[in-house]
Structure formats: structure tokens, C-alpha cells
């Protein structure tokens, strides 16, 4: 036995975020990524002032709507500390299912993607993750 630590996950990596979003049902073409921050639209097509994102999922303000009924865009904005902040309207959090429960699931799945990617680049292998009864996810990584 060697060491044990606890880490609070912070969303920073766009490629892992994209895979986490896909694990929650979004298809790849629904997830827009841009180095230049993109404007976010409301359900009526209006530009949401002060809201920009480097990862965007289009809502009802566009011809294609990937978020849900009468929805606003979902977006992730790069902050100064490098983390990605999630922009979601109160309506979409409450009525379209993107509230706390969904956000927690996103962070959980994002952590899985980060661990997998880090394991691969470090030369480790990993088993398929499994879900405990309490909703926690277990992922075992092995190597030499």
C-alpha cells in the first residue's frame, strides 16, 4: 500500500468535456467548439449579452435545436483560472433537465474521461468502469 488522496474535479479539458457530453446523449455534431468565444442565443434567437462560450450546444434560437423545447443555448466559457464554467438558463436547468443532477453526472463522466486519457498517455491500462449502488463510479488503472 502506498498513498491515498482526494481530488475535487475541475472541468478544464475540452476534448474530455466533449466525450463526457457525448456520454450523456449529445452527438458529436451537436457540440460546437471554437477557440474564439462564441455568442450564446436565447430561445427567441436573441444574443445573450455577456455570455460567450468556447463550447456551445444550440438551443431553440437556431434552426437546429439540440437542447430541448423553448431552450436557450448551453455553453462552456473558459475562465481566467483555466476552468470551464457552464452557462445554462434557469429555465433549462429546471425544465429541460440540465440542473444540478445533470451537471453532477457531467462532472462524474468528465472525471472518467480525464482518468482514461491520463492513464493512456502515461502508459497504463484500465478496466471498464462500473457504478456502485451509491452512484459512485469505480475505475481501476494498472501498470508497471
Amino acid at each position, binding site marked *: *500500500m*502506498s*498513498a*491515498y*488522496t*482526494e*481530488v*475535487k*474535479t*475541475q472541468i*478544464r*479539458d475540452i476534448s474530455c468535456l466533449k466525450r463526457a457530453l457525448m456520454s450523456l446523449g449529445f452527438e458529436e455534431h451537436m457540440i460546437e467548439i471554437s477557440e474564439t468565444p462564441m455568442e450564446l442565443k436565447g430561445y427567441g434567437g436573441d444574443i445573450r449579452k455577456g455570455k460567450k462560450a468556447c463550447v456551445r450546444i444550440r438551443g431553440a434560437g437556431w434552426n437546429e435545436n439540440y437542447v430541448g423545447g423553448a431552450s436557450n443555448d448551453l455553453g462552456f466559457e473558459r475562465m481566467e483560472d483555466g476552468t470551464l464554467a457552464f452557462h445554462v438558463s434557469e429555465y433549462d436547468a429546471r425544465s429541460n433537465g440540465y440542473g444540478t443532477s445533470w451537471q*453532477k453526472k457531467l*462532472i*462524474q463522466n*468528465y*472525471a*472518467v474521461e*480525464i*482518468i482514461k*486519457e*491520463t492513464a493512456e498517455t*502515461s502508459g*497504463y491500462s484500465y478496466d471498464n468502469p462500473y457504478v*456502485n449502488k*451509491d*452512484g*459512485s*463510479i*469505480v*475505475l*481501476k*488503472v*494498472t*501498470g*508497471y
Partner: protein
Amino acid sequence: MTEITFIIDKDGNVSIDVEGIQGTGCHDVIKVFQEALGVETKLNEKPAYFYELDGIKQTVGR
């Protein structure tokens, strides 16, 4: 063989348990994953941490 067990709770907090590495090598392993994931909130060395690789018992500070 090194075995690392990650448990991700429903809030996205991750516990990382490293086994199979003696001495300070476990810190290097943890650091790689911790930096990729986020912010470390707690670190505990377990008994094997306190053994140098050549078998001489020695307390190693953080």
C-alpha cells in the same frame, strides 16, 4: 505491479488509492492524475510510503 483505484462520487470528487509502489514514487503517480483532474483536497501516505527502496526504514516527510 502498480494498481490505482479511482472512486468518483456523485459530486465529482475523486479518491485516488495507489498500491504497489514503495517510497515516494507514489507521489509522482498521484501528481500526474491529480493535476489532470483538479485540486487536491487531502493526501495520506500509507505504510509502504515510509520504506526506502533499498529496504532501509526511514520516515519521509511530505
